[in-house]
């Protein structure tokens, strides 16, 4: 084969231009491998055409490679990718683990505190509850007393008599409700002052002819009683009732100078 004539034919210029058919391209390629002169010629043509086409470009294109690499995610970013895939994974596990541990710890602490608080609350409530129960007991007792009083006051068989203030003690007063059937009196001592220390009120049942006093007892709990109503047994056929102030423990006979109130049972 005449290599020189082949080169002169101009087919290699068309080969570089890409103007040949696929079959012709393969032929040129085969000959190129066979004859180094042909390859040299092709390289020369190619490099001349590159120079020509480059001269048409009005711009330096060398920096645009960075855009392309960015677009293709090349140039070390591949390595970076490997890191970004593994690193977040590691971080995710670690941080989540620590976060969970901290949350758990804080949660447990919080629950212990809450538990202690609740225990204290329960104790407070129980104390309050027992106090309330006591108060209810008191209230019940008071209510029973009040009911008894009401029943007494409403009872037809009860004799009511006022005891008027005497002498120096005219400002004082008292009342006696006498239940003759059950042999007891209810003394309402609201109108009496508190007895001085070391003294006590003593209640007397009197018969008038002759004047005979019988002690019905002393009111020892005067200061502490709320409603100042005292239930006292009276077995006597009394004609009058009196209250005197006596030394603590009471006296055999009433001290007339200290007679506070006196009331006579009206004859019925």
């Amino acid at each position, binding site marked *: 084969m005449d290599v020189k004539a082949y080169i002169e034919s101009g087919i290699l210029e068309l080969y570089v*231009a890409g103007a040949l058919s696929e079959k012709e391209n393969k032929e040129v390629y085969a000959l190129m491998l066979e004859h180094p002169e042909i390859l040299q010629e092709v390289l020369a043509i190619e490099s001349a*055409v590159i120079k*020509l*086409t480059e*001269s*048409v470009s009005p711009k330096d*294109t060398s920096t*645009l490679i960075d855009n392309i690499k960015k677009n*293709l995610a090349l140039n070390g970013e591949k390595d970076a990718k490997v890191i970004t895939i593994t690193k977040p994974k590691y971080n995710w596990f670690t941080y989540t683990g620590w976060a969970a541990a901290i949350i758990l710890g804080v949660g447990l602490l919080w629950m212990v505190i809450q538990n202690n608080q609740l225990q204290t609350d329960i104790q407070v409530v129980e104390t309050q509850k027992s106090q309330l129960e006591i108060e209810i007991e008191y209230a019940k007792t008071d209510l029973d007393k009040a009911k008894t009083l009401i029943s007494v006051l409403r009872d037809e068989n009860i004799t009511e008599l006022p005891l008027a203030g005497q002498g120096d003690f005219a400002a004082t007063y008292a009342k006696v409700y006498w239940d003759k059937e059950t042999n007891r009196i209810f003394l309402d001592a609201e109108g009496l002052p508190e007895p001085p220390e070391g003294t006590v009120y003593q209640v007397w049942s009197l018969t008038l002819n002759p004047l005979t006093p019988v002690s019905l007892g002393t009111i020892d709990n005067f200061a502490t009683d709320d409603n100042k109503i005292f239930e006292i047994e009276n077995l006597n056929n009394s004609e009058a009732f009196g209250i005197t102030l006596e030394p603590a423990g009471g006296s055999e006979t009433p001290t007339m100078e200290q007679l506070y109130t006196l009331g006579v049972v009206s004859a019925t």
Partner: protein
Amino acid sequence: MQLDALVEQFKKKDEKAFETLYHMYSKSMHGVIFNIVRDNDIAEEVMQDVFIKAWHNAETYAAEKGRFFTWILNISRNAAIDKTRSKSFKNAKQNLNSDFFVDILETTESLNNTTDAIGIKKFVKKLGEKCKQVIELLYFKGYTQSEASEALDMPIGTVKTRNRQCIQELRTIVLK
């Protein structure tokens, strides 16, 4: 052969080889594309797309089908022509003139002051009208020999020999 080895590396998606090939051919491709679209920004965009395309289709290149340069030249010409057919391009470029590459060389003086470019300009000025046309059609427009023969109204044999003469002249100027 160094270039062959480089292309082989490129086919295996070697970034270094890709970058080297880019620096070897990007300006040339930009020139070809610019000659078709006549807009610097669009030419840059298309050229970058061409190399991205080349990377993605690297394994489809086969040496027996043609030169690597020719392969990427084909991708460039096709991409540029596709671009001129796109709607957005047509809207923006109503009156695309049909000047040849030689006109670009004459109007972009300030941008091309490399020795090569100056030499090529001198050469181009000396080129006969038929040489300009042949080079334009075969290298810048991607015409086949029969298409060029038809467009220039001359036999295929004449296209071949004329083109050979023109390239020979070019070689004496740019390759010393």
